[in-house]
């Protein structure tokens, strides 16, 4: 296979690389100038609501779609014009796409037969793959006799048996019920770590992405909003969309009233005159005084106490009332009516003996430390 002249200068530790890739369907831009570097051996998730371009991105890597502009490299080699069946990449499809006219073993061995491995080798590797997904002994079963989870495993085995450079997974757990989904998430993560294959995983479920991924790419309207580790995305969402999509946030709108760009700090004044100090999450941003900004605070950072607020340095306190209380098992969620509007607080239960000290309708004070203030300037 010919190497592109500049391939040596590329980071060959990236299994998949997208360089400024755009995909248009007629007048609709599905993927808009996307650049990605997917590290070898990583679990990489494309996360976003439906229509954000994540599936189209995946299909371009698989070869089912060709980019309108830009370039895709797999293992450092450009793949423009290479059909799916010549890419060392395999896909686990959303609805499994198992062949109904073949039994489990023939489904799993399909890819091996295309490259002409011997019958013995096919049988051996199919056996191994079925072992891997814990479906030994299901060889001769018809695929439609299997449960959803079992079909999912067959689809996985059918893709993995070909030892692909990259495994693409297109919302593979979407059709399963919650409990099975949780189990499969762990199983998938375990498999990925065991095999060391690069997984590119498309999902709209943030929990799923947070649970499994090494890197999450949040997409919206065809554009990458932010990419990074689950922690980084949760702790430092760069904009309101990411903050809202990954985990829950209270958002308070205002204008920038103080800036320390070198220290990455800012003050935001709300229309009611309250000033909130916090960290600017987007290091690249260069905002000015007076710009609109949003302060996001995670619900678990809010502390609730009966009585009226007492100002404390390094903390923000506001008065309010408990509007609604929802018991969630391991934690309780409170909806609070405050001077800043409705806020959501969450309090984890520590042990069975805990007693709730606040009640619905009760006047309370809400407070949080300044380091809980995430200043979003975009």
């Amino acid at each position: 296979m010919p190497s592109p002249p500049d391939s040596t200068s590329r980071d060959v530790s990236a299994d998949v690389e997208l360089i400024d890739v755009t995909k248009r369907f007629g007048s609709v831009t599905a993927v808009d100038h996307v650049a990605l570097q997917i590290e070898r051996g990583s679990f990489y998730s494309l996360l976003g609501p439906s229509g954000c371009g994540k599936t189209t991105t995946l299909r371009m890597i698989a070869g089912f779609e060709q980019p309108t502009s830009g370039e895709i490299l797999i293992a450092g080699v450009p793949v423009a014009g290479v059909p799916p069946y010549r890419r060392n990449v395999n896909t686990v499809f959303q609805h499994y796409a198992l062949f109904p006219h073949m039994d489990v073993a023939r489904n799993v061995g399909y890819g091996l037969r295309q490259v002409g491995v011997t019958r013995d080798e096919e049988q051996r590797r199919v056996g191994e793959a079925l072992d891997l997904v814990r479906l030994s002994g299901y060889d001769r079963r018809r695929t439609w006799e299997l449960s959803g989870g079992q079909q999912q495993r067959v689809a996985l085995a059918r893709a993995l048996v070909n030892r692909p450079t990259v495994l693409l997974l297109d919302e593979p757990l979407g059709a399963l019920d919650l409990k099975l989904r949780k189990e499969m998430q762990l199983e998938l993560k375990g498999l990925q770590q065991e095999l060391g294959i690069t997984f590119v995983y498309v999902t709209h479920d943030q929990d799923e992405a947070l649970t499994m991924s090494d890197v999450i790419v949040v997409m919206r309207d065809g554009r990458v909003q932010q990419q990074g580790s689950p922690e980084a995305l949760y702790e430092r969402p760069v904009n309101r969309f990411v903050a809202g999509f990954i985990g829950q946030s209270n958002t308070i709108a205002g204008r920038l009233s103080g800036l320390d760009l070198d220290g990455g700090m800012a003050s935001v004044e709300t229309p009611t005159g309250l000033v909130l100090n916090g960290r600017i999450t987007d290091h690249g941003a260069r905002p000015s005084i007076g710009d609109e900004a949003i302060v996001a605070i995670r619900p678990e950072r809010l502390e609730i106490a009966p009585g009226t607020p007492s100002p404390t340095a390094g903390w923000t306190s506001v008065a309010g009332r408990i509007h609604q209380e929802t018991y969630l098992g391991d934690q309780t969620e409170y909806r609070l009516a405050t001077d800043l509007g409705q806020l959501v607080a969450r309090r984890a239960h520590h042990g069975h003996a805990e007693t709730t000290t606040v009640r619905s309708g009760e006047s309370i004070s809400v407070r949080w430390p300044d380091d809980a203030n995430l200043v979003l300037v975009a």
Partner: protein
Amino acid sequence: MVRSGARRWRSRIATALLLLPAATWYALLLLVPLVILVVFSFGGRAPEGGYLPDFTFANYLELPTRATAFVNALWMALGGTVLCLLVGFPLAYYLATRAGSQRTLLLVLVVVPFWTSFLIRTYAWLTILGNNGIPSLLEDLGFGHIVLLNTPFAVLLGIVYNYLPLMVFPLYVSLERLDKRLLEASKDLGAGRWATFRQVTLPLSSAGVLSGVILVFIPIMGEYIIPALLGGGKVFFIGNALVDLFLQSRNWPFGSAAAIVLILVILTAVTIYLRVGSRGSGSREVSLL
């Protein structure tokens, strides 16, 4: 208990009543004629033609004299079916997968010829294939003098032309129903276009192929208008022999014997085909036929 028993009886009576028209229809128009055919086939010919009660195997013993007509029909039916399949499959595939917004229009175009009488459509070919039609065009283009009309070619052409939609529609339905994601899965797993067609598209559309083949093969076996018009009485099917036996020479008993054997030939061919078809493809749909 008593009540549910009564209800069961009522429901049985209702079922029987609802099936009665269909049952009467089949009895009167299928079974009774079939019985008459069997009875006639052992009879003799009346002096002025028709049927004379008798019991003889003479009609069956004389059947070898019509072997050519049987063989002609059989070969043409096989050839016509294969041609319809070869022409119809790509068309159905295109309609089911590629046609996009044109699909409805194209489907209608496939049916349009069916809006006119079968006879008229075939009659039109008489002029097109005649001396002043395509042959004169070919002659002008320097292909020499070519006779098309009243040849097996003309009959085959008429057959494919008239029966193509009967092949295309079942194929279209099965291809349209085919999950396109399976084709992507196949390509994803390293199978090229042809390999995907052979291993996925074809086996999964086998039910459509099967019904198309049967829908086309059976009527061609019994065809007589196309060979009469485009074969000029020279390309002779068993259907033409039957028309002659009943309407010209009025040898009803011999005609009945020939008709019975035709029915048996078709039944045998269909049975063999169904056996082979259901064994060849593992598809579930086959067993529904």
